[in-house]
């Protein structure tokens, strides 16, 4: 019993002022409050910064073109005036590429996760809640999707339909749908027979209303924090497709695309790999930490 039970730690009614603190120092309590906030706000701050940089900045400031450059500006080093993150071998500004490539990465990450979440939940929640033959049927659908090697399928889609951002989103969704579906099913199973679910059923609430009002609010925290992780994973996976040459068509860029093309000259010019990698790393870590902090907050709710 690390923390006293709820009966004892609830609010204070109005009354005489509390006794001064005896054992726990004010500093310790302030530090505890600070870190609790920091765990949520620091990663969130980084994410907002990244999104601002990718989506707002190019509308406010005129950046060099992310696709065209002059060969005269080629291979500028870091911190060159006008190209402070340097340029590539054909003179395209690296920072512009990061900004516009970040748009593509975030869009794909968010879209694939959203599609996975919506379709996955639409299959997984009824499967977990209904059980029986409905569960068997819906679970098999997820199994089939999971059994597809996502990369091969993505290659097939890119081959058949031609590489484009939308096609890549659908290809990667083949991977995210069963993942979210499985998670939604497992979380639903975990809450389905809790006493408050039985209580709701006995209170006369039925079917869909139970799913919408009881099941979803209770499994949402886990799903949302997992989806933040999913955005990060998708951005990395998208890079893998680019690397294989079946992702975003050149000369458009994404972070994954930049890392992939930079690898050819990594020994000579490591910044072509390091700069986008750093942005990718900060984003993925911030997404994960934000997801964890969010779950911590919601877990208490």
């Amino acid at each position, binding site marked *: *019993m*690390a*923390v*006293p*039970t709820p*009966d*004892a*730690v*609830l*609010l*204070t*009614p109005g*009354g*005489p*002022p*509390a*006794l001064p*603190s*005896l*054992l*726990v120092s004010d500093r*310790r*309590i*302030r530090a*505890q*409050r600070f870190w*609790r906030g920091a765990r949520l706000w620091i990663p969130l701050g980084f994410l907002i910064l990244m999104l601002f940089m990718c989506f707002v900045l190019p509308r406010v400031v005129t950046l060099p073109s992310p696709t065209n450059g002059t060969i005269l500006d080629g291979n500028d080093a870091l911190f060159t005036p006008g190209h402070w993150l340097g340029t590539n071998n054909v003179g395209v500004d690296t920072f512009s590429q990061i900004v516009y490539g970040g748009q593509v990465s975030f869009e794909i990450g968010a879209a694939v996760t959203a599609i996975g979440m919506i379709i996955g939940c639409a299959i997984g929640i009824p499967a977990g809640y209904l059980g029986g033959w409905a569960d068997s049927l819906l679970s098999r659908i997820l199994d089939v999707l999971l059994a597809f090697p996502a990369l091969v399928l993505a290659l097939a889609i890119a081959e058949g339909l031609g590489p484009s951002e939308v096609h890549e989103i659908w290809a990667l969704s083949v991977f995210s749908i069963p993942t979210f579906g499985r998670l939604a099913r497992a979380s639903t199973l975990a809450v389905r027979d809790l006493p408050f679910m039985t209580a709701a059923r006995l209170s006369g609430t039925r079917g869909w209303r139970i799913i919408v009002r009881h099941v979803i609010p209770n499994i949402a925290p886990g799903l949302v924090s997992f989806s933040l992780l999913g955005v990060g994973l998708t951005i990395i996976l998208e890079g893998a497709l680019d690397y294989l040459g079946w992702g975003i068509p050149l000369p458009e860029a994404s972070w994954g695309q930049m890392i992939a093309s930079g690898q050819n000259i990594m020994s000579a010019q490591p910044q072509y790999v390091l700069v986008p990698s750093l942005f990718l790393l900060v984003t993925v870590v911030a997404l994960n930490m934000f997801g964890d902090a969010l779950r911590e907050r919601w877990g208490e709710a």
Partner: protein
Amino acid sequence: MSEEALLEVTDLRVAFAAGGQEISAVNGVSFSVRPGETLAVIGESGSGKTVSCRAIMGLLPSTAIVKGSARLRGTELIGLPEPELRRHRGAQMAMVFQDPARSLNPTMRIGQQIAEAVRTHRDVSKAEARAEAIELLRLVRMPLPERRFGEYPHQLSGGMRQRVVIAIALACKPKLLIADEATTALDVTTQAQIMELLLDLQDELDMALVMISHDLGLAASYASEVVVMYAGKIVEQAPAGQLFGARGAVRMRYTRALLDAIPDMERAAHTPLPVVAGRPPDLAALPPGCAFADRCAAAEDDCRETAPDLAEHVPGHRWACWHPCAAGDNSENGDIPS
């Protein structure tokens, strides 16, 4: 209290820093346990009864700040480094928890769990540890100990599991056994069996027993000394015979309220129970006066201003109240109807 005390706790205080505020769980608790004695520590959830015993055992999480003194046969336990504390735990003192299912490893045979406890504290061979484990199972009156040795916890009933937990606690013949709500999760008939077992073992092994419970009835039936806790403080302490005897002498209104609230076979059906309104105070913001004042029928201004100290008003009987109940009156007082 006396020099031959086995365990002497003086001014024990425990606080937690949780959720950005300080929670004062134990606020200056002093008591002593003599060898072979049965002390019952009684209180509701949040009264600090479990936290104080865990502090003595050194089982609190690192977020807890413990001050004060707890001497076991003269050795100060508070602030003792973990390795030394571990030596005392088991060899000198052991603890049995409420939930036997969670105290046992579900993937290990019970016999091995007991044998492991034996081997942690003494350098014996595997075969010797096994023989001792079977002996311990026999000691806790487990039927067919040789066969039970190879069974897993889930194959046993709650009562049988608690016997296994007790056997593990006894592996090194401790001088002090702390039973934290050890029978609360059990049925009444099983509870009676386990309490009888604990008292028998206490005689056989000459142990002191500290039983932590919310149940005054249990204390009255089995304990020799009773300590009642409220909001992290001892509010009343007396020998069980004196407190619950034919001409009982409960002086604290809180203890009285606990006694009155126990469902009584003699009461006619549907008669309202005497109740105390409200609930225990917030441990993050304890009032400066008596913590029970807000719920007490006899509370006056002095109660809200200054907290009464626990003092020995009658030989052997300590209480902390400015306006105690009249002596020798254990009848219901039905203070505040709901």
